[in-house]
């Protein structure tokens, strides 16, 4: 193990170097560009044996990844925002062809207006594409999760995107514990891919036309793979913890057990919110936090177990779902708690769009409003924090 000062971009690129994938097909986009740059340097310096395909667009990046994975290669790429949106069509195909591709995704707002800073609207846009989604609280987790993602993808035969918040993590230096190359190699083992189009003695047809009499069965199987993914993610997180000392699960509860009021967050905001929880606890207020590390598959059991007995819940969304009724995480958590008898009231806080900072004081305000609600005060269901109205 080595200690290094790295940004999330550098940490994810370092993980990619250690994974040494067979093929990387990628296209630059702010704020994920550095990942491709660093990786290109690794290739140029002979530090990896990867075949690097510097494609002409993100659509082609994912298309080439699909081709390479279908040829039995271990395959990775990186992107953000508009890039992920441009991949949208082929994301579904990667998942449905059950190809274990890994994306290092840096969260950035979607146009318009054009903006290069963090929010989660890009990966929320890919929520239903059949990809496992893992969100990172910090760069250490981004690094650790990228390594785990390869193993998860190759066990679930589903593609995985690991995300880190744009600029907040992608460009901020952090102390990172980096594993030895050998440790990563040993942890991952040889690539496991579901089939190969390179076996010309046993030709297969990949991506056939699938009509009314088979399509449904195939989608049903894909859905089943997603349903079976949580134990795989947990197993890999546990194994990673046992080997390297950092354990990961589907969700990350913080001072939640005896909390009366809880917020649900994703990404780097969790770090700030945990500080606020500590402060409130010092003041004797029973505050807690649930960080969603995995959004797809939706950890329904964990949502229920962790939140069922809370008095009031606030869901913080760094995305606007344009549903007319709150952000996308809000509707997910709200739906997750539906089966809990007398489920707690849930309030939504949409914040931080386009990289707008979220300050500890603002999170404190959110908690204050939630405690007020717990005391019987009426507050709106959907709220915007930190916006000029």
């Amino acid at each position: 193990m080595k200690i290094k000062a790295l940004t999330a971009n550098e940490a994810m690129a370092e993980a990619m170097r250690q994974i040494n994938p067979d093929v990387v097909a990628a296209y630059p986009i702010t704020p994920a560009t550095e990942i491709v740059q660093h990786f290109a340097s690794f290739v140029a310096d002979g530090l990896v044996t990867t075949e690097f395909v510097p494609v002409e667009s993100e659509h082609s990046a994912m298309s080439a990844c699909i081709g390479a994975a279908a040829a039995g290669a271990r395959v990775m790429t990186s992107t953000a925002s508009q890039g992920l949106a441009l991949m949208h069509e082929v994301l579904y195909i990667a998942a449905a062809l059950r190809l274990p591709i890994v994306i290092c995704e840096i969260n950035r707002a979607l146009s318009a207006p054009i903006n290069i800073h963090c929010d989660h609207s890009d990966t929320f846009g890919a929520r239903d594409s059949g990809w496992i989604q893992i969100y990172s609280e910090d760069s250490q987790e981004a690094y650790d999760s990228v390594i785990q993602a390869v193993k998860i993808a190759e066990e679930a035969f589903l593609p995985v995107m690991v995300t880190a918040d744009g600029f907040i993590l992608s460009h901020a230096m952090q102390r990172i514990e980096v594993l030895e190359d050998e440790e990563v190699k040993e942890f991952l083992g040889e690539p496991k891919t579901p089939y190969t189009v390179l076996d010309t003695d046993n030709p297969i047809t990949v991506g056939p036309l699938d009509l009314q009499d088979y399509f449904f069965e195939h989608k049903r199987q894909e859905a089943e793979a997603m349903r079976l993914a949580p134990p795989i993610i947990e197993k890999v997180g546990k194994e990673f913890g046992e080997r390297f000392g950092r354990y990961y699960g589907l969700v990350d509860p913080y001072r939640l057990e005896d909390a009366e009021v809880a917020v649900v967050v994703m990404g780097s905001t969790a770090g700030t919110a945990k500080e606020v929880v500590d402060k409130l606890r010092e003041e004797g207020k029973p505050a807690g936090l649930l960080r969603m590390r995995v959004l797809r598959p939706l950890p329904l059991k964990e949502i229920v177990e962790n939140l069922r007995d809370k008095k009031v819940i606030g869901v913080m969304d760094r995305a606007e779902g344009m549903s007319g009724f709150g952000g996308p995480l809000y509707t997910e958590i709200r739906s997750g708690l539906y089966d809990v008898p007398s489920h707690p009231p849930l309030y939504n806080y949409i914040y931080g769009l386009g990289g707008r900072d979220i300050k500890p004081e603002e999170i404190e305000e959110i908690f204050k409003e939630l405690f007020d609600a717990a005391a019987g005060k009426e507050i709106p269901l959907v709220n915007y924090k930190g916006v000029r109205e």
Partner: protein
Amino acid sequence: MPFDLKELSKEKDLFAPGHRACAGCGPAIVMRQIMAVAGKDTVVGFATGCMEVVSTIFPYTAWRVPYIHVAFENAAAVISGVEAAYKALKRKGKINKKINFIAIAGDGGTYDIGIQALSGALERGHNFLYVCYDNQAYMNTGIQRSGATPLGAHTTTSPAGDVIPGKVQWRKDLTEIVAAHGIPYAAQASPSHWNDLMEKVKKALETEGPAFINVLAPCPVGWYFSPERTIKIAKLAVDTLFWPLYEVENGKHRITYKPRKPKPVEEWLKEQGRFRHLFQEKNRWIIEEFQRQVNERWERLLRLEEASL
């Protein structure tokens, strides 16, 4: 060395019979001709389109070689990935044999929606062959105009109406666009001249780096002709100089077949229902313009050939 039909007929078709192409389908003939040369150690990457739809209706497949279809616009990108994986795995000693990589798409998937992915793959220099079966419109979705549709042609999105007489634009010269990438081999072929086509496929597959062949693939349904006339119409396209057979090898143009006595383009046009309206008196000027364009392009090609000597 010309191909021997008798010998070829003994080989098992790698594009198997039983697929669901229409009677007289030009592209289906092209598939057989390509695969007869390519042989079994070939991976085919397909764009969405007629040939994809008719050949792989699950749980059936007409492909006796590995085949991958992902989407419409990305055949070149997908085959780039397959070829990259092959290189990586070969380097690691996981695979040894020589494999051909062929991307196949129609004119919609090549001239229009797929041109970016094609251009990128050519520029990156992957070792692959891209075949465009050019049937001059979006036939799979029901005969809509494409960048390959010729002047005056009736399609369902360039209909011959009372005011507008079919497609009002000339077509893209995709073969030249591709050749302008400076790739080692680009060619135009027609299934009517099967030996020429197969020689080109052979040459393309032996080429190190990207190769491209644009094959005219008449469509009885979209061009409105009787299915037994497919090859005749392909031949007329060559003999009227509408579809010159030529190749561009390392930047040098060579016309591989020069009709001794070129026919007026009208003879090709009149065989097809999509041009029927051009023979009305008020539209005759389009035929003249068509002929002018064909002449001009042929002259240009002759000059390019001469400059290559």
